[in-house]
């Protein structure tokens, strides 16, 4: 077990103009479960592969514990990796797949069998040890890939989208199992996903990347409550946070025909750039107010989920026929008393639930 440190780690692919990972600074504590999340092409997998030693580090360094492993080959890093498509050796049995690393490390046969059997028991694979990967279901293959990693008792687990080849139901189930397993083993884990729900549910901390640059790294709760910039605000949470940009006016920000109140000092700092302010409010942070008090919206689509209902609404005066952009503001309401399509509503944002960003720098303003 060990800490992991990215110190200004940079990767520039040959012939690329921009770095794939740009001066990444990240400290991962011993035993921590850190999730790297971001849209495709954000550099999250590249970061993981730099830690694995599968990708060169062009500048900066990567440390595991106190050891600088920047120029060490993967086998000297004491890591284990779970690949998106599992990368199981097709000609080896489940048992041989799981014991391969131990065999290469010169662990004797009896000890190897003991450790494989132990891991297989944890993962409920004991009866499949003599099968080959192609005779297993997707979920079982995924568990073999996990088993191959835990058999080695490495210092760090690296997981590159290990759930994305599973169907939706199994993904949710396996998500919980992996989180519980890793907690139990107490091994430092770096986990890459593009799915923010996965990131929020599994990570002790979540690092959000965009275009190779680290946007914010914090606990899931803190990311949700205090996103550092407009990108994180829009990326974390489902449905996404409502983000509306408007001019700063006396007392707040003009949105649609109304003014959302923002404290004077905060407003002044947020508008310092170009006079425009981006405000964000989550779907659950809205409540109905009397006519003329808040922002007027027109309900365009109603999504009934049973436990909640989501209203996709347009700001009053906007074009409601634009099918590609059916909504400016998403609202979560009680499913039983949800307003109908076509209704006009007046909305207010709950006290303290308004996020304010400088429209020019996209940064959060407190």
């Amino acid at each position: 077990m060990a800490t992991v440190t990215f110190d200004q780690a940079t990767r520039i692919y040959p012939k690329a103009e921009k770095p794939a990972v740009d001066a990444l600074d990240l400290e991962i504590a011993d035993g921590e479960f850190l999730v790297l999340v971001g849209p495709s092409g954000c550099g999250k997998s590249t970061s993981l592969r730099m830690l694995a030693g599968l990708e060169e580090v062009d500048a900066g360094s990567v440390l595991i514990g106190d050891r600088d492993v920047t120029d060490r080959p993967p086998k000297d890093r004491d890591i284990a990796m779970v690949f998106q498509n599992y990368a199981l050796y097709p000609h080896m049995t489940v048992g041989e797949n799981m014991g391969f690393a131990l065999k290469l490390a010169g662990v004797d046969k009896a000890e190897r069998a003991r450790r494989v059997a132990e891991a297989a028991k944890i993962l409920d694979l004991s009866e499949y040890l003599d099968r080959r990967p192609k005779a297993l279901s997707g979920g079982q293959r995924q568990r073999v890939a996990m088993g191959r990693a835990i058999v080695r008792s490495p210092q760090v687990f690296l997981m590159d989208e290990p759930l994305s080849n599973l169907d939706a139901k199994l993904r949710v189930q396996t998500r919980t199992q992996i989180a519980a397993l890793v907690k139990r083993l107490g091994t430092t884990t770096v986990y890459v996903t593009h799915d923010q729900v996965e990131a929020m549910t599994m990570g002790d901390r979540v690092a959000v990347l965009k275009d190779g640059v680290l946007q914010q790294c914090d606990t899931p709760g803190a990311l949700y409550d205090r996103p550092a910039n407009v990108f994180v605000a829009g990326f974390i949470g489902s449905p996404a946070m409502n983000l509306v940009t408007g001019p700063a006016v006396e007392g707040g920000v003009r949105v649609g025909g109304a003014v959302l109140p923002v404290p004077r000092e905060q407003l002044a700092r947020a508008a310092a750039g170009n006079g425009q302010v981006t405000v964000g409010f989550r779907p659950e942070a809205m409540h109905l107010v009397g006519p003329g008090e808040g922002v007027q919206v027109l309900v365009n689509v109603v999504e009934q989920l049973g436990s909640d209902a989501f209203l996709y609404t347009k700001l009053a005066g906007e074009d409601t026929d634009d099918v590609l952009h059916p909504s400016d503001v998403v609202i979560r309401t009680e499913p039983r008393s949800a307003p109908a399509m076509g209704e006009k509503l007046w909305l207010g944002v709950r006290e303290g639930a308004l996020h304010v960003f400088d429209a020019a720098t996209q940064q959060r303003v407190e």
Partner: protein
Amino acid sequence: MTIASQSSPEAMTASPPAAAPATPDRTPARRRTTLTRNRWGYAYVAPFFLVFGAFSLYPFVYTAWISLHKTSLSDINGGTWVGLENYRNLLHNEFFWNAARNTLTIGVLSTVPQLCLALGLAHLLNYKLRNRTFFRTVMLMPYATSIAAATLVFSQLFGRDYGLINTVLQSVGLNPIDWEGGTWSSQIAIAVIVTWRWTGYNALIYLAAMQSIPGELYEAAEIDGASRWKQFLNVTIPSLRPTILFTIVVSTIGAVQLFGEPLLFAGNGTTSGGASGQYQTLGLLMYQQGWSNFHIGQAATTAWAMFMIILVVVGLNALIGRLRARADR
């Protein structure tokens, strides 16, 4: 080739009857449509089978017919029926066993190094190299060279008195070798020519198969602590197993039919395969029987014996492949 195409028409005719026992009341209509459909199917495959029948199957069967006769080249149809006597003679013919032995040793001497070298070359070419296309093209050039040209150049290299190889041997203080005269030396020299011609071809086949191995397997092996060599043994070779089996089959067929290289090796195109037949292969023996000694019935028998040997070898390979596949399940 021949074997595969022969089995295919059976496979095709086998499927329609399986579809026939459907619901009884609809059977006539169903049968009529399958017949109509099949008629078109047969029409589409007919050109191939016509050509195949005329130029492969007919000569094949006709050769078998001739092999049962005592006949000469000038009067092929006028032979006398002797039954299996040609085969009995062949099995008691010391030239046949000599040729069979030579074919086997030259085959092993050429096939084994050829395939090992091809694997190694393909592995090297699989790395990201500059001018990769250039190297791949170069590899295929020996294959594109005519046997005659290659063999004549090599017979110069292996020449006893002025050959380049003996000159080099002498310059480092070794005795020159009479490459053509000795049994082993002549067979090694011929194996070298065959290897030179076919290594690149096999390497390209291996390379194509290697490129379909997912890169993650190598990354996983690297993280598991496998060196390049261990990755080659534990990822590349197992993934190439079906391809290796294929190349073994093709090279074996080529080795059994070896003809051009030993014919031209001495430079004068004699079919005797050296003064004491030290490198006479089955192909040469057949040619000698039919076209030097004019015993075309005996030559046809040798041709069929070669075909039988190929059948046995290919069958063994298929059996090994089948057993491996079963073990893999």
